[in-house]
């Protein structure tokens, strides 16, 4: 099903971590890592805060790959938000 959007923006989480206030400007946040997060713990925490606030979070790989700093951490990974557990391997899908 095609869904329309009124706004789409980019945020480089390899350079910095967005604040909750910044995330609140959006209905959906899609986060993924193909490089190291600037702060994986802070990123996971703010995503969990955003989801608690009613936001919709979609996370893509390699957020569960436990190498190279790509692994997302923080509350989003440990607090029951993530549908998967990281196995400590390079997970590709």
């Amino acid at each position, binding site marked *: 099903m095609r869904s329309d*959007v009124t706004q*789409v923006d*980019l945020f480089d*989480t*390899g350079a910095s971590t967005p604040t909750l206030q910044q995330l609140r400007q959006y209905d*959906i946040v899609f986060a993924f890592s*193909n*490089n190291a997060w600037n702060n994986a713990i802070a990123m996971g925490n703010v995503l969990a805060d955003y989801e608690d606030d009613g936001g919709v979070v979609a996370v893509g790989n390699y957020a569960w790959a436990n190498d190279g700093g790509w692994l997302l951490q923080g509350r989003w990974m440990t607090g029951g938000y993530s549908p998967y557990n990281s196995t400590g391997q390079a997970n590709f899908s």
Partner: protein
Amino acid sequence: MGVAVDVAVGVAVGVAVGMAVGVAVAVGVTVGVAVGVAVGVAVTVGVAVAVAVGVAVGVAVAVGVEMGVAVAVAVGVAVAVGVAVGVAVGVAVPVGVGADVGVAVGVVVGVGVTVGVGVDAFEIISAFQRATLTGGPEGIAFVPPGSRVFPVNSVLIVDWQHGKVVTAPLDSNSDPIVANTQDVIQGLGASEGGVIDPLTGDFLLSSAGVGGKIFRVSGFEVPPTPSPTPTPTPGPCPFRVLIAYSDAHPPILLYNEIGRYPGGSV
């Protein structure tokens, strides 16, 4: 609720120890080792029941002058719940020197692998019978409104057993009032089908009782054309999307793909 048919295949290895009473002069003792194969078909309803058939091959050591080789056939029944445990009872027939014939009783322990093949179906929560139609109704069709003779709300029912078509008025729940049933066509023999042609209003049914023919009954009104349900026109949804990426390059393709939707800002 589904119906599942399971197949259980297992291997049973057991030990049979029996007492042999010889028909010869001497009395021997038969000690055998049973190695069996259990093959069964199980219908699983919580617990699987399997039938194990095994062949036991053993060595008989007889007291006295007899010594022979015992060949036994063990047939047992095992109850399998993942692991099959059963009791095998067999008859040992020595071959060789001596003539001992004994009965061996062993224990068969098998491990079964259950492979299930299920057929999913709709789960019926409840059902209510609101009208009883006799004679084996095969087809039911609503009479087009405005058709002469028939009440405004009525049905045509093909009665397979009595070889006829009957009509019945409908009550406020659209159930046929069976007490007011009237015959419309008789002498059809075993008949099936029964449908109103939506274009002409003709009533069509088939009858195997008169040579497998299809009958067309004309005279009904053309059924009204159902008014189509309008499909709402999709409009833009006020989604605001942030792509938070950690990558050497920004995901421009993804960005463009999302923004290309109607109403997108890109």
